[in-house]
Structure formats: structure tokens, C-alpha cells
């Protein structure tokens, strides 16, 4: 039997009569990066807070490293790290003081060496003695990550860790996360950015408190989007041309606009479809740069998912 770091069985969390998390079950393997994806208000943060012991589950069971969250939550707290969605550093303390404070609270051995190591690893030496309030957003996030990882937890919960961080820093951030996972840390991470999900071993799709699906990315893509995707890159008047394109007479499963590119999901033969679209564009005088085939992205899945629900 495979060893699971986190086991969640029929977890439900209600706030009064409102069900924020609705009968969710999943497992996370040791050293795995599991990505939580879902629109705002889906219940991602609530799930993480239950797993960290911040919220008491209404129903269901949660085991973290085989400890029962209801009975051994204090033991669990010694082996997990949590980076909250909300900014939670002490803004009047320096970077070093923030990290040292948590090192002390967790009772980290060889404290100074450990602090030095993590400061180097996250490349924040130049900010070591800066008051946290004065840090740029990207650096703040790395400091928050340092405080969450200072005690080398077995499991790391990251709630939208890269929100508001520029793409270059996001890539750096992910490189570190992946390294830690390779060293055996189990990571549960929520994100809004579709492209980031590609960094995860598996993803869990959550919508309106329910777990819609969990699995490897390609697996999920295949399941949610049957058929192929044709992309039409428009030259101008994207929205107007998109609205004209929507009226095309052919069996379209879904059509959506992503910047200047229209994604058309359909079932018929790809070459035949291409020809149809080209002809249509000619008669309607739609100007386009390019028509090409693409694999479905998570964004397509998402839009698909949310449309289906409403």
C-alpha cells in the first residue's frame, strides 16, 4: 500500500447553513505536489484551513501523517507549514526578525544556521534587515515562504502563494517548491494561474465546494474536453469578430475568446473544420492572422466547467 501524507474522507465544512466544502475525498502522496484549482469562493482556502487545524470539520475525517485532525491536531501542527492567502508577516519587524521569531516558536535546532540557509535558498539576503512593510510584493511572498518552511515541515500548505507576483519571480518560486518536493516534502498548493498547474504532479478541480475531479493534468484535460481545439488568431476588433464567429454553422461544442485568440472545440475532422472556418471568415470578412490546432489548456477546462454548472 502506498503511503499517504494526507487522507481526506468525506470532508464537509459548513458555516452556519452555508456549505463551503461539500463531501470532499482525496489523498495526497508523500513528496507530491497537489494543485487545488477552482474559481473564487470554491472552497479551496476553507479546505486548507481544515487540514491545518484552523477550522474544525463539520463532517468527515482528515488524517495528516496518520494523525487524526480531531484528536492529534497539536502533533500535526509540529510537522506542517502554512502560508496563508492573506499577508501575515509582522510588518514592523525585519525579515530576519520575522524568520527568527517562527524559528523560535517551532523550536528549530541550530537556529542561526537554519535561518542563514533558508535566507540564502530564497535569495533574500539583501533584504535581511529591511522592515517587512517596505518590501516589494514578490519579496514578501518569499519571506512568508521562509517562515512557513523554517522548521522543515513534512507537509507544506500554500494558499495562492504567487498571487500578485510577476511571472519571472513566480517561476523562481516554483523552482524552489519543486526542489523541496523532490526532497520529500508533500505540498498542497492552491492557485489561480492555470499555467502554474503544469508544475503540479496532480491537480484537483474544485467548484462550489465540490471536488469535480482529481488526477494528472493530461488525464483531466482529456476527460473534460473531448474533441479537438481549433484556434483562430484574430487581427482586430476581437470581441466583435468573436461574436460573428459564434454564429458559424457547424457542430461546435464550445467557443470562447482568450485575448485575440478564439478557441473552438468541436468534433468533426480537423481539416474539414479548418476549411469551414476559413470559408466562413471569408464570407463574413473576418480578418485573422492564423488558424491552428492546439491541445486543450486548463483554462479551457475551467470555462467548460463553469459553463456546465450554470
Amino acid at each position: 500500500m502506498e503511503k499517504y501524507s494526507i487522507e481526506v474522507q468525506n470532508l464537509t465544512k459548513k458555516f452556519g447553513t452555508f456549505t463551503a466544502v461539500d463531501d470532499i475525498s482525496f489523498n495526497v502522496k508523500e513528496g507530491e505536489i497537489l494543485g487545488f484549482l477552482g474559481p473564487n469562493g470554491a472552497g479551496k482556502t476553507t479546505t486548507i484551513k481544515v487540514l491545518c487545524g484552523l477550522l474544525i470539520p463539520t463532517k468527515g475525517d482528515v488524517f495528516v501523517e496518520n494523525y487524526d485532525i480531531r484528536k492529534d491536531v497539536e502533533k500535526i501542527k509540529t510537522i506542517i507549514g502554512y502560508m496563508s492567502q492573506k499577508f501575515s508577516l509582522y510588518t514592523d519587524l525585519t525579515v530576519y526578525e520575522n524568520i527568527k521569531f517562527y524559528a523560535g516558536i517551532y523550536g528549530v535546532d541550530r537556529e542561526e544556521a537554519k535561518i542563514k540557509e533558508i535566507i540564502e535558498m530564497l535569495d533574500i539576503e539583501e533584504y535581511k534587515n529591511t522592515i517587512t512593510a517596505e518590501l516589494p510584493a514578490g519579496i514578501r511572498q518569499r519571506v512568508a515562504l521562509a517562515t512557513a518552511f523554517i522548521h522543515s515541515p513534512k507537509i507544506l500548505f500554500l494558499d495562492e502563494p504567487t498571487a500578485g507576483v510577476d511571472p519571472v519571480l513566480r517561476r523562481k518560486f516554483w523552482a524552489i517548491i519543486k526542489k523541496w518536493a523532490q526532497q520529500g516534502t508533500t505540498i498542497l498548493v492552491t492557485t489561480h494561474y492555470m499555467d502554474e498547474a503544469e508544475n503540479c504532479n496532480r491537480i484537483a478541480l474544485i467548484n462550489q465546494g465540490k471536488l469535480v475531479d482529481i488526477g494528472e493534468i493530461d488525464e483531466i484535460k482529456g476527460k473534460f474536453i473531448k474533441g479537438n481545439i481549433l484556434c483562430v488568431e484574430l487581427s482586430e476588433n476581437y470581441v466583435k469578430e468573436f461574436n460573428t464567429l459564434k454564429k458559424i454553422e457547424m457542430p461546435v461544442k464550445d467557443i470562447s475568446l482568450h485575448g485575440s485568440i478564439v478557441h473552438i472545440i468541436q468534433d468533426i475532422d480537423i481539416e474539414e473544420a479548418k476549411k469551414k472556418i476559413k470559408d466562413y471568415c471569408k464570407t463574413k470578412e473576418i480578418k485573422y492572422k492564423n488558424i491552428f490546432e492546439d491541445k486543450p489548456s486548463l483554462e479551457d477546462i475551467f470555462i467548460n466547467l463553469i459553463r456546465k454548472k450554470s
Partner: protein
Amino acid sequence: MKTSKSRILKIFHKEILHIIRGRMLPLLVVAPILQMLVFGDVVTTEIKHISIMVVDRSLSSYSRLLISKFSNVEYFDLKTVSNDRNDIQTALTKGDVKCVLSIPEDFEEKIKKGEKTSLQFITDGSNSNVGSAALNYGSIIIYNFSKEIFSDKMRQFGNVIGHIPDITIEERILFNPELKSTDTMIPGIIGLILIIVTMVIASLSLVKEKEYGNIEQLIVTPIKPYELLLGKILPYIIIGLIDVIFITVAGILIFKVPFMGNILLLLVLSLLAIFVNLGIGTFISTISATQQQAMISAMFFMLPNMLLSGFIFPIKNMPQVIQYITYIMPLRYYIVILRGIFLKGLTFMELLPEVTALFIYALVVSILALKKFKKTVG
């Protein structure tokens, strides 16, 4: 146990950093001293040397006796004695005097007969502070004068000064029969300042972590509630003790209040009172969601403490129901302790009932705060 102690110290250290970075230290130490000076000044600054004119148309031994009472106290400066009522108007309008006492022609005659007579006390309305102070002092002097001569006919003489509002006489006498308030007021003020500083600070400290979103980050660590709460109040216990020392010294040096008791006993028992105040503040903090809410709750608790602790109004003059309520005011016990040590030099054993009450209070608020805090963990 070792990790527990080090966690408490970590929280303590962090709290000290907050205090220093927030530039709170001068405020926490200087503000109480300033408060002491201001409050102390308010209760001790009696308006003195109010210029007075007496119009004596009685020209009798009784009237001379009354006049001598006015000229013998430092509250009044007797400028002139006249026997013409027409002088009153000119003296007051010219500003020569602030008030006038007018003794009627038949003063002695009526006193001897035991009949009702009227003294007139006229004040310059342009300065109401001076005017009401003059009226207050004047009534007390007249009241004491009446007691002296008519010890057996007090009631009758009450009519003599009937035109002077009874209430002002009474209030003044209740507060402070000898016109000497400093000695009892200053120890009370120490208790009052301490409750303001410590309770407000404690009520804000935990709720700040909630408001800024730090508390979740702490709750996911293995820290125990008592470690967190103790670490957080520790700096304020120390600051509270420093404040007690400063304001006590200020009280003794500036306002010349006698100190008859043991300073060490005062500090030890103040420690207990500080702990109670901080405990209540922390409890307020655990049940509040915002700093504003915590602040209002703290005020809500402090106000009845001021009014029902015996600080201003003597408890024994309160209605019975209110007297029962005073027992739940921690300041009540601390003020008895302060006044007892300051003015009577009471010992620990003599203060045992108050100490016990505060001790129980400390226990109850600690348990409540810890219980309530666990719950907010969710």
C-alpha cells in the same frame, strides 16, 4: 517545559519589538506620569485667595466672629469691611472683589432669639469657577460657624443660610469634609491610571494580531494558548510596575501625600492588580474582532470601575443594590489596598480580604481568557 519557556520568551521579545518599533514606550511611561500631574492637579488645586468684601450692618460680636472666620482661611482675602450696602455694586463692577458677604442689621438679635435670619452671599458671575468655589467655601465656613454657635439648634440655623443651595454644601462635605482631598485622592488616582493604561493596552494587543492576519499563522504552530497569552502580557506587567513606581513617587513628591506603609508590599499587590487588569483586557481582546471594538469594550468596563470603586463616591453612601455591584469592580479592592498602605500603613494580613478578592479575580479572568482563546482557534 524548556520549549514552553522559550516560546513565552519569544513572544515576549516580539512584543517588546512591537512596543519599540511603534514608539509606544515613551507613551506608556510618560503618559501615566502626565495623567498623574493633571488628575492630581484637578483634585488638589483649590482656588485660593478669593477677594471678598463684607458688608456688616449688624456690627455685633456675632458678626465680627463670622468675619474673623472668613479672614482666617487662605481661601479668602478679606479686602474691606463696609457698612453701606451701596458699596456692593461698585466693588463688584469695578472688580475690586470677587464676592460679597452681607450681614443684616438684625443678625445678632435674631440669633439670640433663635429666629430665622438671612445672610446674603453675592458672587461675581463672570467667572463661574471662582464664583462657585467662593460659594462652596463660604457655605462651609457659615455652616461650621453655625455648628459652633448653635450646636443644639442646628436645624433652625439651617434656615438662616437657607438661600445658599443646600446641595452644594452637602456635596462638598461628602467629598471632603475638611476641604482636604489630596491625601485620599492621590492613591485612588494611581489605581485609576493603572487600570486605564494596562487594560487598554492588553485589550488591543491580541486583537491587533487578528486584524493584521497574524493570528492564523500563530495558531498553526504548536504554541499553547497560555504561552501566547503569557508572553504577550509579560512586557505590560513590567511596564505597569514601572508606571506604579513612577506615579507613586510623583504622588509623594509633588502632592506631598504621606506614605505610611511598605513600598514592597505596595509593589507586590500592584502586581496582582496589574495581572487582573491585563487579564480582563486580554479577555476583551479574545472576544473582539477589531481594535475599535476592543477599545469600546474596555471603556465600557472601566467607566463603572471609576464610578463604583469608591474612588469618587464613598461606597457606604450608595444604594444597597449598587453596593453589591461594587464588589465586582476590581478597582474597588485595589483602591482600598492603595489607601490602606499609603495612609494607614496597613500590612498584608490586614489587607487579606482585598488580596483574596483580587486573587480570585485573577484566576477567573485567566481561565476565561484561555477558554475563549481556544475557541477562536476554531
